[in-house]
Every structure is written in structure tokens, then in C-alpha cells.
């Protein structure tokens, strides 16, 4: 009886390992190889922005919002919305050997892109103002509007995620 039980346990362990081993290798390969120079500045900048957005979402969605953390995150969003104007110089588009989801349309339709950037900057300014007022409900509402500005630009100027 106990023998049978032991072999069952061993079998479960082996099947578990068979599934887990290839996965652990996948965890090891991260997604931080994003090139040099402006590509890296851009990637890291948007990474920080994503982090700030998560903070805003978490803090405005929970029952005990941390207003200081909301203000800090809104500051990051506001700063990023200004910095992003400098993140797409000519020649920093998709090319061989660089991992970027920036689409060529950024440079072929500069007016449309500038308008999309401005929409984000305008919404980010409002988000910042809402955060500084300390009104969590207002931040939550403006978070949604700012998110739409993000999505607007991503839909038009960011390529879909490539399948690995």
C-alpha cells in the first residue's frame, strides 16, 4: 500500500518536473535586451511609465489609496509625456538588429504622430492636476482618459507584440 503510494508520488513529481523544467528556462530569458542609445532610453522611459500606471491603477482601485504614491506616479506620467517628444528622432525606427515596436508611420506621418503625443501630454497634465488636488475619484476618472490617449497612439504607431 505505502509502496504504491510512494511510486504515485514519485510519478507526480516527475510529471511536475517535466512541465516545470522548460518553463524555468523561459523565465531566465528576460526581455531587457532592447538595444542601445535612444532605443534604450525610450524603452526604459516607457517601462517606467507602465510602472507608474500600475501604481495609479492599484492605488485608486484599492480601499486605502496612498495619496503620496499617487502624486509621485502622476509626476512620472507628466514628466514622461514631456520627455517622449524627444524619444523619436529621425533614424530611430525599426531596423535590422534592433528590437522595437515603433512603426515606420511615426516618421512617415509626423503630424499625426505629434497630435497623438500632444493628446497624451494634455491628458497627463490633467492627471497630474487631479493627483495634486488629492481627489482620488478625480484621479481614477482621469486615469481612464489618459489610458485612452495611450491606446490611441499604440493602436496607430506601435506594432503588435511579436510571437516568440
Amino acid at each position, binding site marked *: 500500500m505505502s509502496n504504491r503510494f510512494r511510486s504515485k508520488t514519485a510519478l507526480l513529481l516527475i510529471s511536475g518536473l517535466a512541465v516545470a523544467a522548460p518553463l524555468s528556462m*523561459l*523565465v531566465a530569458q528576460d526581455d531587457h535586451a532592447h538595444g542601445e542609445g535612444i532605443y534604450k532610453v525610450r524603452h526604459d522611459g516607457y517601462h517606467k511609465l*507602465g510602472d507608474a500606471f*500600475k501604481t495609479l491603477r492599484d492605488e485608486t482601485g484599492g480601499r486605502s489609496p496612498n495619496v503620496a504614491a499617487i502624486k509621485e506616479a502622476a509626476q512620472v506620467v507628466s514628466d514622461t509625456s514631456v520627455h517622449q517628444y524627444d524619444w523619436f528622432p529621425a533614424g530611430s525606427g525599426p531596423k535590422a538588429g534592433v528590437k522595437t515596436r515603433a512603426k515606420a508611420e511615426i516618421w512617415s506621418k509626423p503630424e499625426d504622430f505629434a497630435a497623438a503625443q500632444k493628446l497624451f501630454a494634455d491628458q497627463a497634465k490633467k492627471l497630474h492636476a487631479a493627483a495634486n488636488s488629492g481627489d482620488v475619484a478625480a484621479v481614477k476618472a482621469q486615469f481612464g482618459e489618459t489610458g485612452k490617449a495611450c*491606446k490611441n497612439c499604440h493602436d496607430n504607431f506601435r506594432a503588435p507584440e511579436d510571437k516568440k
Partner: protein
Amino acid sequence: MSTPANHVQIWDSATRLVHWLMVVLVATSWWTAENGELEYHRYSGYALLGLLVFRLYWGFAGSSTARFAEFVRGPRAIWAYLKQLPSRVSDHSISTPGHNPLGALSVLALLALMIGQVTLGLFAVDVDGIESGPLSHMVSFETGRACAELHETLFDVLLVFIGLHIAAVLFYLIYKRDNLIAAMIHGRRRVPHDRSTAPSFASLPRFVIGVALAGVVVWIVARGGNIL
């Protein structure tokens, strides 16, 4: 020589319903993720979570053919089963009327993968930090991103195992002339007269408890882990 056979009910309706709802929801989860419908993807994930909670509960408290203790077998039984696999004789003379010893591994693997997949989804955060799983506030942006990446990769692993599962079922249908798909639809399977060990089915109250349990777990998770 074939023994005279009876059609015996082997799968209860709960097990069959859970099986086909999983098929629908895995497909829905895939489609909504591919098309950026993250809100519906979340709902699909909640539904799958509920099904998984119920199926685990049913594996301990459900009808006999759904219970892990009844169908999960040791390596010796699996080996014995493997040895006769090339025979075109239908299964029921050598194994229990429900899952065979090899199929049991498939059940465990698919359940484990789906549990892993749903769990990763609960903590996943999208690249913009906007869309996220209901428990993602418990982890950092980096961890949430890692969960999302793994969530994407693990789906491919799940697809491989689903493919294997379908291939096995087709093997039974074509090679062994044993229609397991129909059995999972109407619940009945041909079992020889002399081996009519009828499975015992779980009662309605047990089913209700399982549904309630699944509902409570999904409710808590959807609220971000807040119980009150």
C-alpha cells in the same frame, strides 16, 4: 471474440459539462487575448477559475469516475496499460470504465497547466500597466510583466497537451473503434456484461456545495483578494 456489451453511464453531467465548458472557455480566452479584448479575457479567466475549483473539488467529492483516487494509477499500472495499447481490442476488458491509467496522466497534466495558466493570469500586468489581473496589485510591475510573458508562453505548452489529448482520442476512435468523444457528450460507454461495475454518482447537494465553493473563490479573487 467480443463479449456482449452494455451501454453504461460512466460520466455524470457535471463532469461532462465542466469538460465542454473548459473547451469553450480556453477557446474564448485565446480569442479575446489575441484580439485585445482584455475585459472579456478576464471574465473568461474567472469562469475557468471557477470550473477548475469545481473540478478539483469533484476530484475528491464527486462521482467515482471523476475522483483522482479512483483513476490516478501508479507506474506499474501505466506500464501494463501501455503494453496492451497496440492491441485493437477495446479497453474495457482491462481497465476501469472511466479514465484509463495513461489518460489519467493527461487529465492531471491538463488540469495542472490550466491551473498554472489561470494563476499567472491573476497576477499578470500588460506592458502599459493599464490592463491587469485581479491580484496584480500584490506584485511589482516587473513581476506582473514576467507573469504576463509566462502566461503567453505557457499557453503554447497547453496547446501542445491539448493536441496530444485530441490525438489520443482520435487514436481510440479510429484504431480502437472506441468513441470517447460521444461518451463525453452523452456520458455512456460500452462495457461488457461481465464487468458492469456501475460507477457511483455523487448527490445533488454535493454538486451544489461544489458550485458554491467555486463561486466564493471566484468572488474573492475578482475582488482582488478582499474578503469583506
